[in-house]
Every structure is written in structure tokens, then in C-alpha cells.
């Protein structure tokens, strides 16, 4: 059934993702800011999270190259851009500033809608407003 094939793999992926973020303490902004506080009281936990995730995904990418199509889908839809543009660098920098200010990035923010809604709702609402602002002011001409 198409609906089940479309819904279940992403739902399971999101569920595992939310578990991983919460187990590792990444839903705690203080822990995330602690990682960024390299000149102060540095907390290296996030490096272990990234290391574990990147290791598993590096294997997954190797498997992917040998697959003709995804298990539950018709084709792979993956980014194929390789060029570096100012927009990538500027956007990542703006994101990084926001990440440092509150210790929240999109994944933990969405997960926190269930854990700490009082704080996550204003953040996620502002994040969506920021996304809308970006769309209005610099609508992408070339889709990636």
C-alpha cells in the first residue's frame, strides 16, 4: 500500500532519531552549548554523538552505492550539488549563530515539542518564521 510505504519508513526513522537525540542528551541545550564552549567548560559529548552517527552512516553510504533503488521506494532522491557558493557559507554561519545562542538546532527542537513544549513551541514557531522569511526574501531560482 502506497500510504504505508510512504509513511512507515520515515515514521520509524523519525522515531529512532528522536530516541537517539534524547538518549544522548542533545535535547538539553546546556549540553549542546557546553560542546560549543571550547574556550570555557568544554563538554565533548556531542563529538561522541556525531562520531557514532557518522560511522553508521558511512557504512550506509557504502551499501547505498550497491543498491539500484531504496527498499521501500522507487528511486533515490539525493542532493547532487558539489559547488561551493557564498550562500551555503553565509546560511551555515547564520544557523551557527542561532545554534550558539540557544543551544537548539532543528532536530532537538522538534523532539522537544514533546519533552518541553513551553520552550520548544516559541522556538519552532520562530524557526518556521525564519524559514518563511528566507523563502520570501531569497526565493531559490535553481532548485537543488
Amino acid at each position: 500500500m502506497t500510504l504505508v510505504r510512504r509513511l512507515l519508513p520515515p515514521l520509524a526513522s523519525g522515531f529512532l532519531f528522536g530516541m537517539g537525540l534524547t538518549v544522548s542528551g542533545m535535547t538539553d541545550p546546556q549540553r549542546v552549548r557546553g560542546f560549543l564552549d571550547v574556550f570555557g567548560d568544554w563538554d565533548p559529548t556531542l563529538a561522541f554523538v556525531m562520531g557514532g552517527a557518522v560511522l553508521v552512516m558511512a557504512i550506509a553510504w557504502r551499501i547505498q552505492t550497491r543498491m539500484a533503488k531504496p527498499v521501500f521506494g522507487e528511486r533515490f532522491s539525493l542532493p547532487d550539488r558539489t559547488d561551493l557558493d557564498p550562500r551555503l557559507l553565509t546560511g551555515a554561519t547564520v544557523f551557527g549563530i542561532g545554534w550558539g545562542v540557544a543551544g537548539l538546532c532543528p532536530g532537538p527542537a522538534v523532539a522537544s515539542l514533546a519533552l518541553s513544549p513551553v520552550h520548544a513551541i516559541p522556538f519552532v514557531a520562530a524557526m518556521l518564521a525564519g524559514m518563511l522569511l528566507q523563502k520570501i526574501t531569497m526565493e531559490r531560482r535553481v532548485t537543488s
Partner: protein
Amino acid sequence: MLPGFPEAAPLQGLIGGVLIGLAAALMLLGAGRIAGVSGILARGTALAGGSMARTSAWGFLVGLPLGALAIRFGTDWEPAVFASWPVLVVAGLLVGFGTRMGSGCTSGHGVCGVSRLSQRSIVATTAFTAAGIATVFIMSLVGA
């Protein structure tokens, strides 16, 4: 647990990281897509186009907080401390704007892109991490 870093939780970090990696691997090998939270959030809320079915985007976005809740009620989870509302709103705007402008966040660029050795993702991850470190450092200087 980690010599010199009493606050660090390397084991929980690694376990959580592996779960996040498995989540991203399921999205890649199962659905043929990148588990990038900012992109999926933009797709789910119709702030971005693209070939991903909105059903799939919502599956992931609902799974994320559900997975967080599973850990919340399955372990001795402690509530996190967040920044004040005005700070959360400013940070949210920056994170939303920046992740769309830079085509990704910690999950899409940091986990999926870096593990694929994508040049764009490595540059973006370096930029947002450096910006986050600088922001936390400057905020500690001014006592914010």
C-alpha cells in the same frame, strides 16, 4: 566517565549517535532520502517544494517527538533548562533562516553529508560549528 570532563556522557553520546545513524540509514536505504530535519520540516509545512511526499515528511516529523517521549518515559530523564522566550525567538529566527539559506542543518549536513564526504556539507558543518563556538564565546565575554 571521561577523564578531565566530569560533565561528559560519552557512552550515552555514542549510543544516541548510533541510533541517529541508524535513523538516517533507514531514511537513506529505506526511503532513498536524506534525513535532514530542516529540509523535512520545510517540506512538511509547504515552505519548500521537492519530490518528497508530504505524508513522508509528516511521518518523520511525528516520529521524532514520539521517539523522544519513549526515552522520556523509559529512563530517568531530567527536564532541560532553556533560554528565555525572547532569546529562543531570536535564535529560532536565525536557525530557520540560516538552515534554509545554507540548505541544511546538523542532521542533513553534519550527519548525512559529512559521512558521504560531501564537500558542501563539510564546509557547512565547519562553518556552523565555528559560528556556534564564536557565539558562545562572545556571549560568555559579555556575560549573556
